[in-house]
């Protein structure tokens, strides 16, 4: 646990001192969503209809964009191999990195989401389920993404490859995340969707750090 906290603390400190990374993620999130009214026209009904999907897709892309650096900088300066050589299980190290990724991207996205709901004319009933679904879904995105980020270490084409690896695996989160908002707007309960999102998170919590650690290990060999 000490090792976990030490890595979280150090990575948060790095993130804050390096400055604007999280802000850039949020900026991307906002601008990606803002493109849609230009694309489909500003009719409030159209925007309201597509709002949950657009917000979720933009959140997914924003979360993915910052994944590339999850292990990359530590890999390049030799920190990652040293982290793998500490008396801390590599799974714990990966979990710490995922936690920091969520704190610096997932959490700001959740905070920014209501603003985008306003811009997209999201019906009032949709805000609550959107926030809950994002809270349950974005950690899963960070967890799955960590595997992809570890797999591309040392490869010839990083970022674009990462999107090909990770996006298909994001589809279930997207489906249930959007559906949770849609059904509430339609007047039903989102309980099944939110339960499934929780289930995905609970499944990803032990499996992804394990697979991510295996991926880091082969990347360091």
């Amino acid at each position, binding site marked *: 646990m000490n090792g976990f906290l030490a890595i979280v603390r150090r990575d948060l400190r790095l993130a804050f001192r390096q400055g604007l990374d999280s802000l850039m993620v949020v900026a991307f999130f906002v601008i990606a969503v803002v493109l849609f009214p230009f694309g489909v026209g500003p009719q409030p009904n159209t925007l309201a209809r597509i709002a949950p999907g657009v917000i979720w897709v933009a959140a997914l892309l924003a979360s993915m964009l910052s994944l590339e650096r999850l292990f990359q900088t530590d890999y390049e300066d030799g920190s990652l191999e040293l982290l793998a050589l500490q008396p801390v299980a590599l799974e714990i190290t990966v979990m710490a990195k995922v936690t920091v990724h969520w704190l610096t991207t997932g959490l700001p996205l959740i905070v920014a989401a209501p603003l985008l709901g306003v811009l997209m004319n999201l019906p009032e009933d949709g805000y609550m389920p959107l926030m809950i679904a994002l809270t349950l879904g974005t950690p899963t995105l960070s967890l799955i993404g960590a595997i992809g980020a570890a797999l591309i270490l040392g*490869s010839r084409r990083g970022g674009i490859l990462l999107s090909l690896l990770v996006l298909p695996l994001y589809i279930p989160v997207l489906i249930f995340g959007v559906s949770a908002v849609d059904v509430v707007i339609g007047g039903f309960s989102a309980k099944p969707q939110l339960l499934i999102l929780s289930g995905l998170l609970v499944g990803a919590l032990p499996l992804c750090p394990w697979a991510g650690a295996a991926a880091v290990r082969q990347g360091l060999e």
Partner: protein
Amino acid sequence: MFHRFANPARFLRFAAVIQPWIAGLTVLLFAVGLYLGLLASPADYQQGETVRMMYVHVPSAWMALFCYTGMAISCGVALIWKHPLADLAAKATAPVGASFTFLALVTGSLWGKPMWGAWWVWDARLTSMLVLFFLYLGYMALNNAFDDPGRGSKASSILALVGFVNVPIIKFSVDWWNTLHQPASVVKMGGPAIHASILSPLLVMGVAFTTYYLWVLLIRIRREVTANKVRALQMRQASRGEQ
């Protein structure tokens, strides 16, 4: 000296013996299957002659899943027991599986046009196939993304296993999403009641596709083994140059 693991001589001898037999069997099965499917079986009372597309589409979809399963198992064997043939088999399977998936998508689309009046409909099965196609693409891209082929095969093995765990989850969520967004009146492909006159050519074609896959697999593994030998020779030259 090649490392003994990089030189699976026993497999090569076995492959050389078995390959002509598999090739012959494939040709024979295709001849029978196509005859039964295209000439000897009746046209569908609703869909007419287009139903014959099924004899290519359904086996392709089977093989798309079969190949991914086989690939994931090979990857597991390669990771756990470090068996080099398993690595080669997985690497050789991926493009074949991707081709089957692509074939299933194209035939599905061609079949769907007269039925749905559109080239593409977000039908649950077709959508799952599309995602599977992306999983194949990701595997192949990752496999080729490293200068060291050993790194590529290890990384992509882990990806294949992660993808394999995810396939049922994706399938489930796509089905859910589909029922949510589409009226149930859409005719499901290869519906529940299959008559025997349709089933037997379908099964023959399924077996023919499988033997075809084994045939291509053998060719590709033998090619990979040869390529590895060439690579080892080049490396030996490079490391000799330094002395």
